[in-house]
């Protein structure tokens, strides 16, 4: 029912809160201030600088396809389950229209791309979430594709690598969405039992039900510098508790210090880190 026509293009958007809808593509033309350090930037500058702010190194959001391409050896990625699309199981008001707008804006059928790829010569199952598709929220399709990715990894005895980015559960699918947390966690449980390596990359922002399920269950959890990672979003915490949030709260550096991340890695060196991790883990299996 849906024909994705992939047209790679840069998309610099700030997703600092889950209630904010993504900027339209048009408003991103021309100069804009860096949301972290307020330096005025042009799109050209940022492209030249590999999607970072040249002053504060803020990592701007990249699309799921850019992520996949930046991690996999050239031409090796085979997409799985690209035909899966969301229905509107609860007949939730406006959901159909939102889905349609999201797929038109992103040229993607849903908020995650999964498949098989080769990284540094080593075969893996790889997935990346798309921040612009309804804030990377997890509905039935995202949950199903994560499970199939885990099952695909088990069938082939391959490592699983997922790049996460999400505003949380997709409310328009009600409990069907919340249960995807349980479903994906259970699938990761089986992956664990099979002794297969599972790595997640948490990018800005990863919050809510995705953080509280498959994203935080990896053997190795890597954060991108400055990424907002947590369960409850910062605005809701501020509103609910009336407390001022500490500096750097819920950012990668803060999470590393609080024991939740294994490593923080700049995006440019992400691929080389994965190659080293995969190599050592292959060594572990052969060495025995």
């Amino acid at each position: 029912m849906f024909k994705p026509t992939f047209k790679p293009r840069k998309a610099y958007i700030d997703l600092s809160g889950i209630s904010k809808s993504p900027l339209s593509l048009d408003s991103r033309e021309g100069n804009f201030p860096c949301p972290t350090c307020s330096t005025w930037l042009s799109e050209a500058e940022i492209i030249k600088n590999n999607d970072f702010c040249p002053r504060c190194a803020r990592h701007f959001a990249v699309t799921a396809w850019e992520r996949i391409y930046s991690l996999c050896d050239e031409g090796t990625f085979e997409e799985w389950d690209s035909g899966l699309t969301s229905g509107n199981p609860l007949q939730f008001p406006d959901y159909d229209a939102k889905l349609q707008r999201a797929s038109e804006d992103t040229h993607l059928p849903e908020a995650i791309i999964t498949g098989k790829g080769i990284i540094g010569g080593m075969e893996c199952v790889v997935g990346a979430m798309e921040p612009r598709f309804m804030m990377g929220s997890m509905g039935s399709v995202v949950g199903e594709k994560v499970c199939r990715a885990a099952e695909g990894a088990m069938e082939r005895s391959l490592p699983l690598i997922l790049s996460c980015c999400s505003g949380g559960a997709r409310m328009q699918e009600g409990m069907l969405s919340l249960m995807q947390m349980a479903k994906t966690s259970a699938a990761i449980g089986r992956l664990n039992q099979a002794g297969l390596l599972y790595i997640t990359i948490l990018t800005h922002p990863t919050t809510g039900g995705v953080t509280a399920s498959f994203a935080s269950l990896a053997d190795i959890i890597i954060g991108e510098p400055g990424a907002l990672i947590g369960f409850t979003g910062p605005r809701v915490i501020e509103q609910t508790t009336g407390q001022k949030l500490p500096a750097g709260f819920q950012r990668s550096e803060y999470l590393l210090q609080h024991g939740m991340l294994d490593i923080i890695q700049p995006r440019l060196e992400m691929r080389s880190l994965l190659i080293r991790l995969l190599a050592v883990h292959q060594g572990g299996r052969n060495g025995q």
Partner: protein
Amino acid sequence: MANNKFEFEAAYRLLENKLEELRQLSETLECDFSNEIANVEKRISQLRAERYKHLTPWEQVILSRDLERPMTRDYIDTLCTDFIELHGDRLYGDDPAIVGGIAVFGDRAVTVIGQQKGQDTAENIRHNFGMPRPEGFRKAHRLLKNAERFQRPVITFINTPGADPGIGAEERGQAWAISQLLLCLSSLRVPVVSVITGEGGSGGALALTIADRIIMLSNAVFSVASPETCASILLRDVKRAGEMAEALKLNAPALKDLRIIDAIVDEPLNENLLGAPDFVADLRSAISKHLDEVSAQPLDDLIRQRYQRLRVIGQFYEPDL
């Protein structure tokens, strides 16, 4: 839109009060209206029962949060004997928003765990309004692993607005604590039955609702997020929470249709649920029946089926290959 139980209860309470005045008057005047009074009483109670049968989802949300409803400790005390509460996660703290321990249900030893709200403000502050922090989920995790070691079936009782949304909870890995509990329950090698008794709010509720069977009280709710949150995010108008309550399909019949839950236990009109012997008997026999059924299965089958239950949840389009 009604915002508390008394708004939709008001009409009946007014009638009941009038009736009481009439009754007292009749005694004072020594006139006997007792037949008439009895008839009106019956009529009110019928109307009320009818009304309660047709509560809107939003009214059910309000009712599910009512502080006069029994809390987890009350269910444990009524349904079990020999309850011994066990404390602590052995890591950081003891979270009063989750109560757990071992007890005897019928003739079998069980592990019981649930979120615990208080019944007044002071109690509620102590129990953090039933919103667990990471140490609560980790206490549950510990008690579940113990249940597994001693082959004790588990009964969970669900009643929480959700996981604690505070700074400390984030600092100590709220998301990590929840995901680890989901993973733990999804493969725990003992039978697990969950009972949603009140407010089943978001991830904080879900974390204890991965079970072989899920039973729900007829006025309990179970939702991806509170209707208020959905209204404020999706409609930018928290006052339209009632619409969202409708749209979210969060009540027991809707969730049974979606195959999220397995059974519904009807609540009586009685304010004091656990004072109604029929309700207690119904609830007890529902838990008992499901626990018997799942306990009769070989453990490997049970775990496989629990996985399958979760695995098939979700609705989407897939093109024919």
